């Protein structure tokens, strides 16, 4: 494992380079290594930055792994289903000594991975936060398929205010590197989600997760409607829902209150 600093915002993340069972894995880390750990599992795109997690570093050891096939991590050879990612994180948690007291925060695709992880690994978790998680089919709530939304519309549907994303978008929409990176990340998402965008394990097994859980949603989420939130809370025996106004799918990026609520929930 090597450690190199990452270009700072208000908080400097260190970049940890690990080999997780053959998958080159990058973990961004900030905060006191002795502080309680918060692990953030990102969504299906890594381009919008981690500014929302910077305040967490004041009281937690913040760890942001890039999923296999996303961001700076390598591909997981033989990746087939969400469960492969769960096992990847079991291995990574073992490597990082994350055996207990973990505050696991998962957003969107990362929310699905976090929920699946919690079903099998709840003994490692102190708190679970699911931020606009994907993967649950709720009768009566219509959800547009991620892969079917044209990319030029997708960006706008991620946020309530475009200025949230503008600093993270290339000035040229045809920027080759940016589009190749998005293609690679969407490809990885497709490997695990194309055949079954709705997870078949969640409805049957979420009831196991008695970990205190916070379900977070932006009230203006136009990708995964906030109407999904109560269904998650109903399946999870120890969950509460918190919604935040004037925030879209990227609720943590758009609402400092949401980010603060996550920190408060993890500290309690």
């Amino acid at each position, binding site marked *: 494992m090597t450690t190199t600093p990452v270009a700072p915002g208000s908080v400097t993340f260190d970049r940890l380079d690990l080999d997780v069972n053959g998958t080159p894995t990058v973990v961004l880390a900030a905060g006191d290594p002795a502080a309680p750990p918060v692990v953030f599992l990102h969504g299906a795109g890594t381009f919008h930055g981690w500014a929302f997690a910077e305040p967490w570093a004041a009281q937690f050891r913040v760890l942001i792994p890039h999923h296999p096939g996303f961001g700076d991590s390598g591909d997981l050879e033989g990746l087939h289903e969400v469960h492969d990612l769960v096992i990847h994180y079991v291995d990574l948690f073992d490597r990082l000594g994350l055996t207990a007291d973990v505050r696991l925060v998962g957003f969107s695709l990362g929310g699905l991975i976090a929920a699946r992880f919690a079903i099998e690994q709840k003994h490692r978790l102190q708190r679970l936060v699911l931020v606009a998680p994907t993967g649950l089919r709720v009768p009566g709530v219509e959800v547009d398929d991620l*892969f079917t939304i*044209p*990319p030029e519309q997708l960006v706008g549907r991620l946020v309530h205010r475009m200025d949230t994303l503008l600093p993270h978008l290339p000035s040229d929409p*045809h920027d*080759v590197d940016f*589009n*190749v990176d998005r*293609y*690679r990340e*969407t*490809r990885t*998402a*497709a*490997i695990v989600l*194309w*055949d079954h965008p709705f997870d078949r394990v969640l409805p049957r097994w979420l009831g196991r997760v008695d970990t205190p859980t916070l379900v977070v949603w932006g009230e203006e989420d136009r990708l995964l409607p906030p109407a999904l939130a109560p269904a998650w809370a109903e399946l999870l025996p120890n969950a509460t829902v918190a919604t935040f106004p004037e925030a879209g799918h990227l609720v943590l990026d758009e609402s400092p209150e949401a980010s603060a609520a996550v920190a408060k929930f993890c500290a309690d």
Partner: protein
Amino acid sequence: MGLVDQAEFHYFHFFPYTRLPPDHGERESLWVDFPNSNYDPAVGHELYNRYLQQMVLADSLGYDGLVLNEHHNTQYSMNPAPNLTAAALIPQTKSWISVFGTPPNLGYPNRLAEEYAMLDVMSGGRLKVAFPLGTGMEYWANAVNPATARARFRESIDVILRCWTDDGPQTFAGDFYTYRYLNPWPRPVQQPHPECFLVGTGSPETIELAAELGFGYSVVFIPRVAQLKVFDSYRERLAHHGHEPTPDKIAFGVFAYVAENDDLAEQEFLPHIMYFFENNLRTTARYLNPPGYVTVPEFRKRIQAADVHGTTNWDDLVAINRIVAGTPEKVADAIGGWIEEAGANRITLNLTIGDMPHWKVVKNTTLFAEEVIPRLRARKAAPKEVVA
């Protein structure tokens, strides 16, 4: 025997649905999401009959074979199940029937091995097949993950070859397909199996696979000049794997129109070939490249390269494709030149294209058969110049 006089001419028909609504120009894509409410079965019935008649005409005029392909959710082709069309043609024809073809990973490969064997048996051994991966559009239309399409494609070909080359019952335990009793009836007439091709756009993986299996290579959708390098590479790999790189192992397409003079030919051909490129092929980058359909490096190449779908730039079209319209002599010269240049002589002929009316199809098909093919058959290979 020379390259040109031994060339094979296979008559390709896309079976397009050509009755488009007046406002179709407002749509970005005429594939995948072009509403099927625009399909009128009565028009379809008329077109199927007309197209089958045209194929039968081509057979009676002595073309070496007839070629069909498969596409889904589109006006480009009314052959989502080309084996049905092949079955309709078999009792009316005597030439080769090439199904070029069904993506073997879109359904169950044992089923495709069975269907192809049926066609081969019904036709008395007149079937040729090509295995395409299928365009990106097919993966929006079918319940197959584009991100694993290539791995599934490879394994499905293994299943089909096992069906044809080894006696059943067998077992097959793959990543995508598990067979406890792989034992399809019937078996093909042609032993061990009909001549097979892979359809490719020049990717080294496909070239290698075709060469390894000793399959022919049918090239589509890359510029003519780039094709020549692909052919060299394919021949080199074919020889490497111990297969003779004969000129008939490479199939390439030609768009041609023959008339009394060059001006008339261009005038009669142009609207329909433009219709083909502007309408039949009109789709979006997103539909061409569903997630994972190509590797990440290949995606980078693609977004940096020109897109042939829906292009209306004539210079690009001519650079990418082999297109000729003119007198029999002009058309024969062009095709003879392309054969020499490619060192390959299996030609898939697009003599009917887009919304070409029946009279032009009959005229072009007949003139090509009676005036162009005999001219090429009469040609001997140009003697190689001796370089001092």
